[in-house]
């Protein structure tokens, strides 16, 4: 099966080890990636706040590429998935406003039709591949590992655009954790935001949000966090030392992108996956990382 991976800006340019894990897992599952020149999605938080027009224009450009390829986009970032789904939704509801942008896109050979299909990769894993097939690839089940999942906000919200999973009580990431033999631990602040957006303007609030999240996860007995968004990954992996400095805490919770844990369960090694590039050390779970 051929799909168009959409890695966005953060994964390839800052967290290439996440790209590595995604590529290994999807290859093992028999999915072939066709890489095409997608631009920045653009960011539904940063760019849409500054200019909705810029957001729609570049989003429609990316959607046009997928339409021409006639293949599904599989996004590895919550923000990119939200943008691509959201821009398609925007154009459907703002046909007149879009006409000016349509003409601009045509000048560079992009002909927007509105037919692209976009899946967040968690959705694709569950609907396009299926839990049973994933279980069949598990060689090294992560038995006994207690995992707190964090889907991040733009994974299922706003639900009227995205229409996937439960926006206030998401379950599908837990299903993936269970499929690789680990235990999904419930915790009070499961749907709390990572705080990356407010961190741009007020780092104090972002630190408070992160502390609340880490406290709740620690109290739940989970040993690590599994997530599905590079922005949340960066925020949690980098902010722990600042939280500890600010509040005198000692959080050292390993952060994993879900495909990293899947890759380990599929038989790949911490070395192959570049676990040494994580900021928060992973030795409590993988001693040879």
């Amino acid at each position, binding site marked *: 099966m051929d799909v168009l991976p959409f890695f966005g*800006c*953060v994964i*390839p*340019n*800052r967290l*290439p*080890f996440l*790209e*590595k894990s995604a*590529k290994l897992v999807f290859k093992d599952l028999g999915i072939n990636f066709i*890489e*095409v*020149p*997608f*631009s*920045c999605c*653009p*960011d*539904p*938080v*940063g*760019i*849409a*706040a*500054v*200019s*909705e*027009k*810029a957001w729609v*224009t*570049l989003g429609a*450009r990316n959607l046009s590429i997928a339409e021409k390829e006639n293949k599904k986009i599989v996004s590895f970032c919550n923000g990119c998935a939200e943008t691509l789904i959201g821009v398609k939704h925007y154009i459907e*509801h*703002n046909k007149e406003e879009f006409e000016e942008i349509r003409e*601009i*896109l045509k*000048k560079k050979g992009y002909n927007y039709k509105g037919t692209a299909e976009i899946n967040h990769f968690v959705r694709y894993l569950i609907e396009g591949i299926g839990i049973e097939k994933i279980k069949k690839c598990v060689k090294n089940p992560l038995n006994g590992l207690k995992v707190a999942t964090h889907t991040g*906000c*733009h994974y299922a*919200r*706003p639900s009227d655009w995205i229409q996937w999973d439960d*926006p*206030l009580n998401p379950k599908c990431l837990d299903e993936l954790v269970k499929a690789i033999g680990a235990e999904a631990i419930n915790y009070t602040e499961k*749907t*709390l*935001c990572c*705080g*990356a*957006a*407010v961190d*741009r*303007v*007020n780092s104090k*609030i*972002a630190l*408070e*949000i992160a502390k*609340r999240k880490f406290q709740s996860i620690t109290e739940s007995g989970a040993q690590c966090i599994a997530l599905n968004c590079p922005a949340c990954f960066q925020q949690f992996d980098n902010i722990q030392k600042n939280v500890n400095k600010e509040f005198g805490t000692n959080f050292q919770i390993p952060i994993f992108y879900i495909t990293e844990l899947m890759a380990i369960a599929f038989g790949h090694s911490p070395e192959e996956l*570049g676990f040494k*590039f994580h900021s928060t050390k992973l030795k409590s779970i993988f001693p040879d990382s």
Partner: protein
Amino acid sequence: MANRIDLEFRNSVLNKYISSTISYCYQCSSCVSACPVASITEGKYNPRKIIINALLGLKNKIFKERDPDVWLCTQCCTCDEICPQKVKLTEIFAFIKNQFTENFNAPEGYLGEARALYQFGKTVMLQPAIERRRTQLGLSTIIEPKPEEVKYFLEAIGLNKLVSKEERGEA
């Protein structure tokens, strides 16, 4: 005087297709109870107040006094889900933020990203250290468009005039 109603602003909010949901707000505060930033700031940041300020056209409160400051929204969209009247708060806030940009008042934390997108075609630059990591991991070169193409589109819609210091005469 500071809180005079600005009808032009009020109508711009009400006329924006999606923001018409704003008129269904009955100020129940469900959004506040679900908002992580409201909780952490003990109500100093308050999404309900931004909605009533917009609904009444209290332009100064939103743009000058920033009471509350719409940029403190962490865009988790929980309020959108919890609102019994299905008011699209996050979209209304994005509309307000776009107006900040048009008045050259958006915070640098946001403008910087837009400027990078305009100048380099992407929001995160590839540093030599990351390039080495890509090689170590056996990853191929990043497939991406030429920055000139992205620039072409962003100039065509006028983003450069909003975010570029040179074009704003501040260089």
